[in-house]
Each structure stands twice: as structure tokens, then as C-alpha cells.
């Protein structure tokens, strides 16, 4: 990792989220072409985010929602 890599590394989440301006984006894209380490870094981070997103699905028992609704309505009626 050279100093260029380190500078870009700090912005890599924003890069993945499409939050960088066009200039910086283009610079990072061109750096990625020549730097396998940064490509690996980017890909592993992208996978991490995707896994967090998919694995977060939580099946909540329908009884829990019914209980919540009951509790809220009862509390408001008193």
C-alpha cells in the first residue's frame, strides 16, 4: 500500500455508496485499474456490505407484532 492507496482507502466507502464527486471518482477508478491491492480491498468491502444487508433479514414471529399492537392500543386507551 502506497500513500495514494491510503488516501483513497479512507474514501472507499463513499466511493461504493456513490457519494464522491466525479473527479475523485475518476481518479479512484483509474487507480483501481493499476492496483490489485485496492481492488481486493474494494471487493472485500463490497461483499461485507452485501452480506450485512442480506443477513440482517429477521423473521419476527407474527405473535410479537400482534402483542405490540395490543400493548400500544391498550396504553393509549388509559
Amino acid at each position: 500500500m502506497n500513500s495514494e492507496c491510503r488516501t483513497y482507502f479512507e474514501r472507499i466507502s463513499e466511493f461504493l455508496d456513490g457519494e464522491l464527486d466525479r473527479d475523485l471518482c475518476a481518479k479512484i477508478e483509474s487507480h483501481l485499474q493499476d492496483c490489485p491491492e485496492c481492488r481486493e480491498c474494494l471487493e472485500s468491502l463490497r461483499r461485507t456490505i452485501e452480506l450485512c444487508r442480506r443477513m440482517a433479514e429477521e423473521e419476527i414471529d407474527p405473535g410479537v407484532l400482534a402483542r405490540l399492537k395490543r400493548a400500544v392500543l391498550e396504553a393509549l386507551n388509559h
Partner: protein
Amino acid sequence: MQGESVVNHMEKTASNPSDEQLVASFREGSAEAMEIIVERYGNRILRFGLKMCGHLQDAEDISQETFLSAFRYLDSFRGETRLINWLFKIASRACMRKRRKKKDEPDREISLDAWLPERPGDEGRSYQIPDPDAGPDAHLDRKEMKKVIGEAMRQLPPHYRIVLNLRDVEGFSTRETADILEISEQAIKTRLHRARLFMREKISEYFEEEAYG
């Protein structure tokens, strides 16, 4: 009328009411509107509470507090943000309050610098993160993966965990998350980046041990 039948009924009789319509009906005293709001967003708030606190009981407390507070103050809701964002704002405060009250969870504001690659010896560190798009029989067992991610998330300090949940799990934008937590967009970006690095390190550690352990 109970359970899902309210929604079914609304769908049969009228079109699915928008949040704005529900808020307006609530102001006119409709209890049905409240029921539909809880049915529509209850699971998301419950899930968020569960991810933040780790216990179903805490998640239920937080969700109750959120909806009760929402209905008490719904008159002050001006609609400058979406209803769901407003609910998450209330829920986030409830989560952080609950955490402060807890004695068993120390305020671990650990430094995440350790997960930056400046760490000596990390040059060219390669990470073992399974491909989310690999087939089910690749070494990505869904149940196992959920456990690994859940455990890693619980180890994240709460200020980072809440940002990761709002951004990457719930899908709020940086600006929306900043508004929900009432902190700057820059703070959201910094915390999110570090939280993701932390998650990557933890997931990778797990699969490295799997491979060599």
C-alpha cells in the same frame, strides 16, 4: 377487527392508504389508523431494536415506547420528513437511552484504528469474505453466516452499530441517517466506514479460522 384483517379490509374497501392519509385519519381520532401504522412499520422497528439490543424483550420495550411516543406527539409531526424516518428517530433515541441504563454493557468506545490497514504487517492483507452471490452449497451456509454477522455486530460499539444498521440494513441515506441521529453527515460517513471495516475484519477472521483452524 384484528390482526391482518384490518389491512385486508382497507385494501378491499379503499386503496392502500398512504402515510399522509393515515396521519390525517389519526388526527380525526381514528384508532384504525393507529393499528395500520403499527402493522405497517412494527416489524421494522422490532427488528431494529433486536439488532441494537440483542434481546427480544428489549426490542419490544423499545418498539412500544416508539409507537406510544409517536402517537402522543403525532400532532407535532409536520411531515417535513417521512413517517418512517420520524419513527426511527424516536426508536434510535429509545435504543441509546436503554443502553445507557444498562449496567451490563460497558460503554466500550474502543478505537477502531486497529482495523485500518496502517497496522504494521498489514501490507497486502487479504480478506476472506464469502461471495454473497455464490450458490447455497458454496461455503456460505445462510444460518452460519447470520450468526457470524450477528455476533460481529454485537461487538461493535453502539454508536457505530446504530449507523451501520440505519445505513446498510435499513437503507437510509447518509443525509437521512444524519437527520435521524442528529449528527453531521461527515460523522455518519466516518462511523459507517469504520463499522464496515470492523465487520470485514470479523467476518474474515472467522473464515480464516475455518480454513486453517
